[in-house]
């Protein structure tokens, strides 16, 4: 009788679907998928890099980048976008994870699949607790419960509660239940869970110790509810990291550093976790394959530290065109490395292959791919160059013989007598011209002989966890006093990484084979006492501008010390005068502001809302 009044949806899923097996597996897929709303999202990326000792704002930087630099050109507010991204992505994902964990046993899902949900819940809580301090464990239906109540209230738990109630138990269970080899390409493994747990133990150990007296929020005693001390956690961190190294499953180090980041080697055995992308399907890539709009889930982080190289002209012709090539890519000029990065962090550019395997320092002519058939163009010193030849080179060392002129290559470059390419010394880089970030450059196999879709987001997976990080975690724990196993001291572990960095098979910027093994020299140069500052510098060489630097610096409370000043040239071509800039990094900045959208969305009194916000914002 009431058929006209009945409802049966046929094109949308209702939450009931979450109680079926396909629904639960789909929930897991959504968790993997959420990774790319965070990793490769350039504004989130920027929040982990700009303002550290790795980068500053670039010439085209907008407020999103200047706010993060803490150098008087903007300030980080609750309304700033970059610091809100994680908050907005993590909680829905945590809720989905809780839903999967609750429903999975009802539909008979294996513990290995439930462990994936546990991993993601812990993973997000770990990111949140590092970034914002204590965060709520109860989303409305109870602690760590799937929320079915439209709650507009929220109470933040303390940092030790988040670690001991959520992160540690979930990850311990995940290590037990996850497989050695992922169930899908890029799937979660015991190694991934060990890496995150060892890092979480390490971070929590630092938090308990709090050597520089950085405040926490909400207020909490620096004592562990589980009754352990910092030392216990450092030892756990060391032990779990070493276990992961000793029991690597399918993971391991690549033979050379170049091979770690080379696009052709994507998803290699060193990659423990990444946010995947594909050039074969726009739908499943989640973003345009032709023109990225600059938003998640696109992987557009690599655009930020790419200067506007298509401005280069050789005798009036644009000789380096925008190309979907790992050396080039889409230029947004939002971020720039500092002179200290080029001169200090990467001081050794000869033995250590990591400078060459991180940056694009040579820009080569590709005008032929843009349809210009001119065989040669006149470049520096009136000398001809052909396609594929160097047009502009960032030198490894400062050279007093370089003479700069604004009109050189249309980008204010320099010339050296006898050289056909224009040059720029490392001490002469500026916010508008600097070596690009080769590591995160795009790569396409569908461009034929042309320039390809340089405006699309990168279709490469964005790296999140690398096997090599286990060595750093164990080494840091050892530096903090963990008892090391034989031949696995902090120096031993770091030397594994450094020895690998000494191995060359290809000269990336020279674009030619170079088979050299400088491992012995690298190891010889390692100081006898590997201290925290050395470890952090080594970390920066290994993982430069991949997005995690800010978390490393706040964990170790070294941010203020290491990032207090930097030097770089100005914002116009031809300006090669380095300017020393001072940052003001207050203690309150060690926690990001709770996003205004969260505060606005709460139904609580003004006083409660004020108390919800981290101090200083």
């Amino acid at each position: 009788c009431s058929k006209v009044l009945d409802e049966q949806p046929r094109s949308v899923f209702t939450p009931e679907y979450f109680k079926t097996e396909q629904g639960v597996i789909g929930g897991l897929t959504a968790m993997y998928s959420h990774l790319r709303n965070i990793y490769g999202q350039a504004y989130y990326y920027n929040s982990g890099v700009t303002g550290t000792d790795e980068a500053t704002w670039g010439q085209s930087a907008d407020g999103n980048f200047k706010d993060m630099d803490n150098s008087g050109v903007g300030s980080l507010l609750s309304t700033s976008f970059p610091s809100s991204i994680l908050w907005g992505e993590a909680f829905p994902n945590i809720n989905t994870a809780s839903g999967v964990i609750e429903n999975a046993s009802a539909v008979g899902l294996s513990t290995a699949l439930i462990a994936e949900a546990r991993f993601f819940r812990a993973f997000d809580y770990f990111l949140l607790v590092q970034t914002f301090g204590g965060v709520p464990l109860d989303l409305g239906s109870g602690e760590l419960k799937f929320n079915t109540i439209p709650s507009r209230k929220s109470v933040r738990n303390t940092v030790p509660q988040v670690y001991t109630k959520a992160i540690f138990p979930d990850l311990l269970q995940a290590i037990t239940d996850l497989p050695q080899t992922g169930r899908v390409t890029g799937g979660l493994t015991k190694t991934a869970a060990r890496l995150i747990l060892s890092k979480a133990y390490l971070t929590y150990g630092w938090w308990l110790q709090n050597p520089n007296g950085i405040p926490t929020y909400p207020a909490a005693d620096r004592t562990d509810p589980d009754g352990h001390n910092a030392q216990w956690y450092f030892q756990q961190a060391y032990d779990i990291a070493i276990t992961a190294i000793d029991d690597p499953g399918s993971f391991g180090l690549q033979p050379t550093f170049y091979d770690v980041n080379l696009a052709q080697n994507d998803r290699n055995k060193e990659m423990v976790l990444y946010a995947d992308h594909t050039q074969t399907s726009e739908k499943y890539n989640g973003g345009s394959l032709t023109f990225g709009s600059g938003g998640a889930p696109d992987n557009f982080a690599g655009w930020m530290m790419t200067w506007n190289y298509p401005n280069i002209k050789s005798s009036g012709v644009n000789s380096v065109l925008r190309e979907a090539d790992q050396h080039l890519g889409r230029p947004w000029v939002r971020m720039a490395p500092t002179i200290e990065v080029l001169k200090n962090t990467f001081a050794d550019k000869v033995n250590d292959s990591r400078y060459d395997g991180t940056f694009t320092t040579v820009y080569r002519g590709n005008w032929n791919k843009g349809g210009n058939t001119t065989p040669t163009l006149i470049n520096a010193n009136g000398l001809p160059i052909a396609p594929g030849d160097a047009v502009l080179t960032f030198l490894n060392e400062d050279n007093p013989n370089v003479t700069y002129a604004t009109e050189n290559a249309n980008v204010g470059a320099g010339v050296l007598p006898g050289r056909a390419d224009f040059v720029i010394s490392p001490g002469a880089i500026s916010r508008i011209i600097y070596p690009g970030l080769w590591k995160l450059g795009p790569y396409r196999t569908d461009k034929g002989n042309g320039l390809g879709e340089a405006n699309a987001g990168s279709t490469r997976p964005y790296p999140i966890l690398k096997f090599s990080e286990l060595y750093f975690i164990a080494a840091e724990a050892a530096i903090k006093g963990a008892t090391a196993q034989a031949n696995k001291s902090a120096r031993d572990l770091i030397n594994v990484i450094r020895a690998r960095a000494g191995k060359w098979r290809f000269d990336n910027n020279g674009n030619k084979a170079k088979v050299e093994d400088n491992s012995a020299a690298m190891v010889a140069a390692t100081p006898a006492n590997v201290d925290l500052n050395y470890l952090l510098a080594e970390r920066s060489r290994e993982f430069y501008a991949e997005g995690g630097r800010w978390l490393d610096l706040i964990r170790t409370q070294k941010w203020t010390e290491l990032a207090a000043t930097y030097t770089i040239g100005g914002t116009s071509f031809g300006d090669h005068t380095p300017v020393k800039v001072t940052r003001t990094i207050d203690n309150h900045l060690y926690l990001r502001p709770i996003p205004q959208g969260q505060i606005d969305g709460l139904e609580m009194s003004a006083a409660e809302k004020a108390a919800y916000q981290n101090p200083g914002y």
Partner: protein
Amino acid sequence: KVVDEKNQPLPGATVKAQSSNVSAATDANGDFTINLPAGEQSVVVSFVGYANMVQALNGQDQLTIKLNPNSKNLEDVVVIGYGTQRREAVTGSVASIGGDKMREVPAPNISQAIQGRLPGVDISQTSTRPGATTQILIRGQRSLTASNDPLIVLDGIPFVGSLADINPNDVKSIDILKDASATAIYGSRGANGVILITTNRGQMGGNAKITYNAYYGTQEVFAPYPMMNGPEFVALRKAAGKFTNGADEADDVNIDWQNLLYRTGTVNSHDFGVSGGSQTGSYNFGGGYYKNQAVIPTQQYTRYSLRGSVDQQVAKIFKVGFTTNNNYNLTEGSQVGIYGALSSSPIANPYNADGSLKRTIKMPQDETYILTKDIVNNLQDEWLNETRGFATYNSIYGEAQIPWVKGLKYRVNLGLDFIQNNNGYYTGQGINSSVPTSLSVAGVTNSQNYHWVVENLLTYDRTFAEKHNFNVTALYSEEQTKYNSSSMSAKNIPSDAFQFYNLGQATGEITIGNGNYSLSGLRSYMGRVMYSYDDKYLISATLRSDASSRLAPGYKWHTYPAVSLGWNVNNESFMKDVSWVNRAKVRLGYGQTSNQAVNAYQTLGALNTRQYNFGETNYATGYYVTQLPNAALGWEYSENWNYGLDFTLFNNRLSGTVEYYVNNTKDLLLSVGLPPTSGVNSYTANVGRTQNKGLELSLNGTIINNKNGWTWDLGFNIYANRNKLVALASGQTRDEGNGWFVGHNINSIFDYEYQGLWQEGDPYLNILEPGGNVGMIKVKYTGPVDANGQPTRAIGAADRQIIDVDPDFQGGFNTRVAYKGFDFTMVGAFKSGGVLISTLYGSGGYLNMLTGRRNNVKVDYWTPENTDARYPKPGGIQSGDNPKYGSTLGYFDASYLKIRTMSLGYNLGQLLPKSSKINIRTYFTVQNAFVLFSPYHKESGMDPETNSFGNENAAVPLPESQRRFLTIGTNTPSTRNFILGLNVTF
């Protein structure tokens, strides 16, 4: 004989002796015979839609009486939903306009034609593209996230299509029910008002009548978007100091990109009809053609419409009939946008040395594909987007007099509608892309909408003892709407010739889009009693019960009562001697109505999907919860009080209506945004209350009544609506996340308040704006100050203000001056106060970045030499890509007065012999003639009417949740039209 203003016979007119009750009606030829009492000096002639005429006899016994159409006197019969009523007996609030009157504004659709002409009916432009429709708000906005659209009823059947599907030439009258005492008979769909559209029908016993109406016009850009020219842009880029010229730029170039793109648009309409009748039946058939070519090349809208209606008496007691309205329409060229033309650097040279056009221009950071009218025209087979719509709206009815009960009638209406839309697009390789090898893409979207309704109506209409008039109506109805759509797209189409017609042959990725399905139904009972005593005391009472499938079980039913009272004061004996009052009626109404306009399945919650790839080719789809179920979702309903006064004075020369209303809406259906920590985006709930209060006045007067051949009529309406949120969920007074604030407009902006620019020497710049600079925007600081008056913190989120957007009052006016065969009409509209949001000047448009990166809207910006500017220093502190607080630059006073049309007509029939029975009228019309009193027009030269929803036509538009804000964005430019028209009847 009685004839109309065109000397055509008027069948069915009433001729009444002035001093007695003797009356007669005219026949099919307009002839009548009346036996007048001795000594009668004159007769009164009346007819629907015409002014009553008092004709002196002067002793003649053969008279030809000519009536003039007079909507000021208002149609004597109004359509009130499930029936009609004499205007004199109406107790609810009904605004009406006749089809002819409406067509004084030649417009592609009804809503544009009646914009500004009826009090309380706020019609806003939401797009300037050809074929676009409008937003109609009757007595303000009452719902926050559910629909605020009024219910439209076409020839008695609830209308599920688009107003653009109805040819204005087919319309006989439009009656708008505004208060709940009138709309309660539509119960659950009455809360937002009801628009009743009645199309033309034939007249029984009439001769065949043929009409032909046509017009042709040209459209010129009303005003180009005020972008900088070459030298202005060079100065800006220099002042900003952020960018050096890109590869194609030079300081001595000066290109007007808009001029290269725009063409002259055209509008073209043809319509013919034939109607007539026999003694037992009548018919009306017609067809129409309408085409509008926009000023943007290839953008156009074409509509073909066909209609028919037949009524037939079968035996004595049965009557059957049907109505059919059909149209096929084609919307083309929507892929051509203007952001590229607006943002392209005016100093970028699009020409190669040999004079040929380049493919793209390179600016410092951007490379833009060049679009000129020639390029777009030449690409029309390789770059297109078209939507083909077909809609058919049909109703049939059967009616039977119940023979043994006098005045009792049974009627069944069956409505059957089908609407189909078919969209296809194709972009050839490299077109509109900076990369020449970008793959071609094509796609198709199809949607179908099926709607049926069955209504069973029993009516009883009888007068007892000459004074007690009863009209009783009972209804049982059911209806159902089914919608489904599908879409697909593909890349790398092997041949341009395929366009979107064979996606299966694509060699690139083929994507099946999400399908969409919804089925929703409504079941209703309704009863209504209207009683009048001696035409003096009127009462109308209605009760309707509706059940909707869209609401949660247990909450589906709601019952709506309504009562209204009327008192025709002029019919009282004590008014007999007040000769200057022809008519006066006091009305009072109360009613409840509601809004079920949430989408189907909202009570069930929702999962969203997102895709992922595990490795290069292992694809997977994920699900996560975005919306929680609400098993208690019920009706949002409004309680409405309406007070009205209708009057006609001074020998019918001045008539008017004054109304006051209070409309309280409760249990608002809201999509409530949740804070991220809830893990879920939103849920739909019944929370909160809103209120609309308002005053409406309309006046129609005849200033000169056929004096020496001159006639001058004037109409005026003004109305004010006060809209506010009264309560939100759980006693909160502000919901900053959703932008809702108790005591303020539903449409209120939550943003910083612009207070000028920071000047050299202004105190506390470094405290309030760390990192800021002189010349940046100064916004209001609301934080504490210390003992020295020094602010204690920087400006931040706590300083945002609530800015009400609604206007103070608005209205319209029209005037008609006629002399012999000439007539001149003018229709205007005005609005005072309120906030106009222009994304052109605000930050979302990315056209006022003041950095010199792309072209900038021409603004008076701050420089050390020009410190009293409104706009900030170029290259100063930014938030994102725009000046900090740049959004505040997009708020303008929304006031304007606009002459919408001016029309001069001439009746050629005057020149023809009277016996020819041919009537020909020609006219010339200027549309969008000019704008006065508009601060936005003054600043920009542009049309101050909105052209976009909030989430459209800006580089970074407002979020979907703020679609409710209408804005001026980068849509097809508004035009000024020059139209030449012809109406022929014989």
